[in-house]
């Protein structure tokens, strides 16, 4: 008797990524650089978020060729993004052998009302959240890992910080509540009551919570770790920098030793220019990726 796709197996996979960096890559060469630098996984994409933002139009699941190329190039896990609510893209990625699926607001949503029923899949899912209610709705649907939404492709950390702080402070609030306050809190957050009970018992989310969306420097990665992230996703940051190899290594080291400021200082020396970045208030509201999904 052997059971695949159980919560323990799916959530456990994310537990193994803790303290690590997951990097966006668009081909085998970048995937190898990421693996060599010590990334714990790669996200196979057709375009990194900043290019998606620049290109406009509809962003979809990557060409299966890219996923297969990346799977063939590295031995670390390979993740891939499906559009929010796109049941079939997710099934295709699962069939192609993606180790984790990101139901991602970086792509253009396929469904503005319903997210994917992630419990129905054998492959685990990661989803973005801006607050505890959103995180728990996704976990209720079967997400085995949560990440902040941040504002992808901006190189601006402010939204990821906002989302991580929000989730952490809401967890603390729930932990400090008396049992009879929980149902009302569940109603206010729009979150499953049972998951609030679990948070109160364990003092933390039932799945790991990574930082994503706007991490552009080693110090950004260390900042997110010190705010309580279990690990970080770096999207456009690595391969939009001047020296991807060094940059990738520096981010990995800063994530491991996020409290060693002298080391982070050394790592940050002469790294060249980080991606330029965008001030959030300059992005018109309809173009804010974090507002996709609910």
């Amino acid at each position, binding site marked *: *008797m*052997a*059971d*695949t*796709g*159980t919560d*323990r*197996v799916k959530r*456990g*996979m994310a*537990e*193994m*990524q*803790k*303290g*690590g960096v997951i990097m966006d890559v668009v081909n085998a060469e970048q995937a190898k650089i990421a*693996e*060599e*630098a*010590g*990334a*714990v*996984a790669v996200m196979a994409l057709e375009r990194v978020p900043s290019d998606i933002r620049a290109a406009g139009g509809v962003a979809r699941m990557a060409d299966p060729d890219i996923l297969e190329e990346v799977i063939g190039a590295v*031995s*670390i*896990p390979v993740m891939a993004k499906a559009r929010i609510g796109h049941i079939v893209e997710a099934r295709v990625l*699962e069939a192609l*052998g993606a*180790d*984790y699926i990101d139901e991602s607001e970086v792509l253009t949503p396929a469904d503005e009302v319903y997210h994917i029923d992630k419990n129905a899949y*054998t*492959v*685990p899912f990661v989803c973005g959240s801006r607050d505890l209610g959103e995180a728990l709705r996704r976990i209720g649907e079967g997400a085995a890992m949560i990440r902040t939404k941040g504002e992808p492709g901006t190189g601006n950390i402010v939204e990821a910080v906002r989302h991580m702080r929000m989730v952490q402070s809401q967890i603390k609030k729930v932990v400090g509540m008396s049992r009879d306050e929980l149902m009302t809190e569940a109603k206010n957050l729009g979150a499953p009551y049972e998951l609030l009970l679990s948070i109160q018992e364990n003092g933390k989310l039932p799945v790991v919570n990574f930082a994503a969306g706007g991490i552009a420097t080693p110090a950004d990665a260390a900042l997110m770790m010190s705010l309580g992230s279990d690990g970080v996703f770096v999207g456009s940051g690595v391969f939009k920098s001047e020296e991807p190899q060094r940059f990738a290594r520096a981010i*990995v*080291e800063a994530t*491991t*030793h996020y409290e060693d400021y002298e080391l982070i200082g050394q790592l940050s020396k002469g790294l060249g220019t980080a991606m330029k970045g965008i001030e959030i208030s300059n992005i018109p509201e309809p173009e804010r990726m974090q507002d996709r999904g609910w």
Partner: protein
Amino acid sequence: MVKIGVLALQGAVREHAKMLESEGTTEAIIVKKAEQLDELDGLVLPGGESTTMRRLIDLYGFREPLQKFADSGKPIFGTCAGLILMARQIVGEEEGHLALMDMTVERNAFGRQKESFETELDMKGVAEDLLAVFIRAPLISEVGASVEVLGTHRDEIVAARQDQFLACSFHPELTDDHRFHHYFVEMVKNTKAALV
């Protein structure tokens, strides 16, 4: 009281520490610097990504101190990626990482994540129904004469012991089943008593 470290470069560190602490007679130490090894009676190499861990082991000068720790006779327990670090040979690679145990391992031997699974195993000297979670797990394809096989799954070796070294390709730390950790803690206690 015994002090057992968990190598904390990357991976499921907290879960191991929690398991060890729940033994009551154990103090779990999160090991981020090589000098911390000096105060330990035993060490856990946790699950995670073995390529990442190996890179950080080299980068932070852990390799020699880990080897010295192993030579001192103190017990080491490797789970999943930890097992890979301990093997003398890795299929498809030139040499092992720490090469502590006389065995050959094959990485990702059960397939990709969708093939990952949990099951119950008969584990020699530990339990007849140990709950085991396999995540993109390696397996032990060959063992030397001095290695004792503790458990198999579908005729493949998934747990083994060689003197003070214990390794398994699954994750006991992701379950509520404490028996494998208890087995290791007993190893550490016995070794400590013998080394004094």
